[in-house]
């Protein structure tokens, strides 16, 4: 039997007895980042494919909200910082090995692009919108011509943003639960699924909703596969990762994860989407609302549980 005790006393706030350096801000920020990434991906993808008229919500309406989502995410990130006055230091350096740095710069690049996209499409939301100043009107006219390159840049950046929300966590080898490269793709797919859900909620056209329900169904299937794959990887890994996964396989997170995240956040919405596509009468808001709820909860659970997982020595 082995017992390890810190006998000199160590109660560093947020470190002992258990790491709690990130509270609600970071998971909320990851959720908003993933959601914005999902929406922007579909907007640019379907625009490039020339389907703007077929999927107006995805291409024009939903992206209008993304600058707000990203902005709110940045506010949360800012609130999380403990040395706030030095926030600008994020933008005087680019550290290629630091996911946090990548994320900060990606957000800085995608935020103005999403703002431009929103400005170009603002009339979908407010038909009477008037830019008032001629300079702005002229700028908009110029930008109209560059829609395709903007869409391409947005599509690439949205994938980076979406995958980054997972890589931010997976880069920490000190926290075994996060330290799996599945987390990047998993958060990307989950973010795209929340994006599709948001589009379904906003859409007024049944055909568009059905397309996105079908897309979401595929994404949910990939997510389930990745989740199972992740736990298989943990089970076959070192003791620290076996212990980390045990929190979800019998430990304290088992019920909330499998019932709320997997059950209510993935399986039930998947079933509802199938029913909706078969033209059964189900309120179409329920499935996407559950997807959004599941995505948010998933990030909270991963953030908290990950900080609980640790090396033994």
């Amino acid at each position, binding site marked *: *039997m*082995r*017992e*390890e*005790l*810190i*006998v*000199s*006393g*160590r*109660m*560093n*706030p*947020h*470190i*002992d007895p258990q*790491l709690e*350096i*990130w509270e609600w801000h970071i998971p909320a920020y990851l959720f908003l980042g993933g959601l914005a990434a999902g929406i922007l991906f579909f907007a640019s993808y379907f625009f490039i494919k020339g389907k703007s008229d077929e999927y107006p919500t995805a291409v024009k309406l939903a992206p209008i909200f993304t600058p707000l989502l990203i902005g709110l995410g940045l506010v949360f990130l800012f609130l*999380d*910082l*403990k*040395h*706030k*006055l*030095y*926030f600008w*230091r*994020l933008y*005087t*350096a680019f*550290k290629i*090995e*630091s*996911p*946090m*740095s990548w994320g*900060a710069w990606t957000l800085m690049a995608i935020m103005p692009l999403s703002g431009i996209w929103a400005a170009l499409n603002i009339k979908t939301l407010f038909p009477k919108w008037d830019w008032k100043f001629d300079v702005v009107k002229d700028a908009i006219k110029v930008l109209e011509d560059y829609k395709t390159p903007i869409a391409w840049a947005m599509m690439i950046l949205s994938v980076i943003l979406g995958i980054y929300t997972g890589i931010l966590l997976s*880069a*920490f*080898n*000190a*926290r075994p639960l996060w330290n799996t490269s599945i987390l990047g793709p998993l958060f990307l797919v989950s973010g795209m699924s929340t994006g599709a859900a948001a589009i379904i909620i906003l859409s007024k056209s049944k055909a568009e909703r059905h397309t996105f329900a079908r897309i979401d169904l595929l994404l949910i299937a990939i997510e389930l596969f990745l989740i199972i794959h992740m736990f298989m990887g943990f089970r076959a890994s*070192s003791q620290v990762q076996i212990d980390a996964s045990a929190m979800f396989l019998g430990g304290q997170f088992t019920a909330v994860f499998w019932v709320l995240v997997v059950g209510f956040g993935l399986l039930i919405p998947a079933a509802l989407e199938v029913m909706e596509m078969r033209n059964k009468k189900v309120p179409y808001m329920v499935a996407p609302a559950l997807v959004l709820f599941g995505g948010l909860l998933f990030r909270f659970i991963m953030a908290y549980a990950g*900080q609980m997982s*640790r*090396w*033994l*020595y």
Partner: protein
Amino acid sequence: MRYAMAVDTKKCVGCSDCVVACQTENDVPIGYCRDWIVEVTDGTYPQLELEHRSERCNHCENSPCVRCCPTGASHYSDGGIVLVTKNKCIGCGACIASCPYDARFTHPKGYVDKCTFCIHRVKKGQEPACVAVCPTKCMYFGDLDDPNSDVSKVIKKRKYKTLIPEAGTQPQLYFLI
């Protein structure tokens, strides 16, 4: 130059003098500490074994904390000592999450703080405060590149271990066993 420290677990009695010395020397705010003592009991009565370790930042050669810092506040300084530049640190906590030894904390003023190997003393030719104050003289500090330094000599002579080397950090705190 490669600064490192060796702690003799056979000599350490767990008196915590090093902890208090550090807090005094470095003005560590009340309720925080940069070094700490771990007591390990192995076995079942009456076959028991006891080990004391004075722990702190390992000044890792492959530091996850330096790698993940978005601003370059966490960096390698002279002799591989890992330091935090206060006015570059934004307090994002990434480095805290990245340290498998939980050696860092957020100073009440907002930036991240941790052991500096008392670089301000070392530069003057003195030992780190914890090393200097230890009543059993169980700690050795010095330059690993210099074969005549205290730490090089004792590491050559004795068996040692490092903490979770499998985390890939290449820690520079050697525990003599």
